[in-house]
């Protein structure tokens, strides 16, 4: 089969690879019809995530058609059109039994601090991902779900991570009616978090970024008030000024490990890999939120330490909430929101690129060229 293959930092290509096989009785093999590149894939692409091996296939956002199932699979069958959460999870461990699917303890031998994620290094379990023609899906009775007939493929693929994560991020903010919510990052997760904040009754939603085209999208798609931090000496002071010096009630970090805005933080983390991530956005979130407020962290960080301003968080009495999103738990409610017209996730898709050109897709997305917000990958066999 054809598959994206990592060759080292900033390098990848498409090559012939063995088709995955059933390795466990509850496995399925899925023929991928749509995949997406996630902002967090860029951390792998840039060589930031420890134990990212040459030869691995990335891709944790994908949908497809079940091609083959193991002997114990009951809930899906060959031919089913399915969406697959980015979490690999067993459904029965201590954490899964409590709904914390992203923290599953039975799928990742490489680390106890993180669950399993498709195509996201051996630190997340060593599973090949869905930027390929076929992918192995463990626990086929637990993760995959049939795609409703009324749902289109682009909406479905965005439900496998980006939309669910943005919606989850807004929920972790514990928003109450009239709250001022500030979202750092106008990428896919930030856009969805901003849009979701309204559903939870926010009174004002502010989005911060440095890319004008993304801020324009935040205004049109998420109805947000936008600020380009490059236009201000100090974005934290600006946030204080526009909130009558109180600060926002809730701040959401939707940027993560490669945040720009502080040259030293960015270069030491994103380029020299001396930190688990560049916490510029997280530190701005901590400093922009009001005392007693809540910071929700949806941006992905590596397992190493990062220079986070915990002193300010402590002194301000903040609640810091974060997790990888337990995707499938969000789906029933998100299906309703899409069906009712409250959310239209595919509105943020800017590029549809054949699998054979995935190296260009990564570069365009990474370098923020051509107005790129969300690239979708279409395998040859789709």
């Amino acid at each position, binding site marked *: 089969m054809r598959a994206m293959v990592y*060759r*080292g930092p900033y*390098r990848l290509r498409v*090559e012939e690879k063995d088709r995955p096989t059933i*390795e*466990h009785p*509850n496995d399925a093999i899925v023929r991928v019809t749509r995949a997406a590149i996630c902002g967090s894939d860029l951390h792998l692409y840039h*060589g930031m995530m420890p*134990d990212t*091996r*040459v030869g691995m296939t990335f891709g944790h956002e994908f949908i497809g058609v079940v091609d083959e199932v193991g002997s*114990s699979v009951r809930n899906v069958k060959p031919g089913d059109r399915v969406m697959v959460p980015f979490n*690999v999870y*067993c459904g*029965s461990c201590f954490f*899964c*039994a409590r709904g*914390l699917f992203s923290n599953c303890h*039975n*799928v*990742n*031998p*490489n*680390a*106890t601090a993180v669950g399993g994620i498709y195509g996201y290094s051996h630190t997340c379990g060593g*599973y*090949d991902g869905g930027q390929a023609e076929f992918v192995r899906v463990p626990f086929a*009775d637990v993760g995959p779900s049939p795609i409703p007939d009324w749902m289109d493929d682009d909406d479905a693929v965005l439900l496998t991570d980006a939309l669910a994560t943005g919606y989850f991020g807004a*929920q*972790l903010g514990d928003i109450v009616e*009239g709250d*001022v919510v500030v979202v750092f990052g106008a990428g896919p997760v930030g856009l969805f978090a901003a849009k979701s904040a*309204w559903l*939870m*009754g926010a*009174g004002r939603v502010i989005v911060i970024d*440095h*890319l004008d*085209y993304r801020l324009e999208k935040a205004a049109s798609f998420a*109805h947000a008030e936008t600020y*380009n931090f*490059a236009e201000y000496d100090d974005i934290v002071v600006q946030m204080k000024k526009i*909130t009558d*010096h109180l600060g926002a009630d809730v701040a959401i970090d939707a940027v993560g490990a490669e945040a720009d*805005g502080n*040259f030293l933080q*960015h270069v030491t983390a994103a380029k020299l890999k001396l930190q688990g991530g560049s916490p510029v956005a997280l530190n701005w979130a901590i400093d922009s939120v009001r005392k007693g407020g809540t910071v929700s962290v949806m941006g992905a960080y590596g397992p190493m330490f990062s220079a986070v301003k915990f002193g300010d968080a402590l002194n301000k009495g903040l609640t810091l909430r974060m997790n990888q999103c337990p995707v499938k*738990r*969000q789906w*029933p409610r998100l299906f309703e*929101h899409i069906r*009712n017209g*409250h959310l239209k996730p595919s509105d943020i898709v800017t590029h549809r690129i054949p699998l054979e050109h995935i*190296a*260009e897709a990564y*570069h*365009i997305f990474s*370098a*923020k*060229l051509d107005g790129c917000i969300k690239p979708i990958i279409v395998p040859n066999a789709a």
Partner: protein
Amino acid sequence: MPYTPDKPKLAESTDELRARIPGWGVDLDPRDRPAVPRERFDPSLNGAHWEFPERQPEKWPREMSIEHKFLTPVFGTSCPPRGLSGMIRRYSYRTYSEGRAAHWLLLLAADRVDAVEGTLLSFLTRHPDNPLTETGVLSEFTHHGLSSRLRGKRVDRVHHLIDPVIVAAPWVLAGGVAYLAVRRVVRSRKG
């Protein structure tokens, strides 16, 4: 204002927000939010028909965190450890917990070694690594590279010029060291 008791008034009323924003407030009640409460004990809801999953066969000694009691029943089988990078990875997993910086730094070092090993091995195949196509850099010419970088006030512009240097420097250095080593060997044999 934080200096007095009341919260600053919002510019828009609830009714105005409901009229302007599709779906405003439909998840106002926390009971409608699927992530609330954080933990909900119900193992029957998840599709699992086992208390502990059947074990996947272990086809090679699978590296694992020393914080685990045993090998997890299911695991990824992509890219078994190989070569010098594999030795570093196995040592890191065998020796250090996830709480130790040494664990992660060794894995990052192994990743860099793996990239060099992968490139060297590729020269023995019909598909040697090609940095021009594998970096996707040609899209700079087909997808508005220059105009995208010059538009607006992007702050990442300050490191655009050093980015390629940081990416290419290890390869240039490694090439230089290899060249000097080969030259020294050749000269010593001639001498």
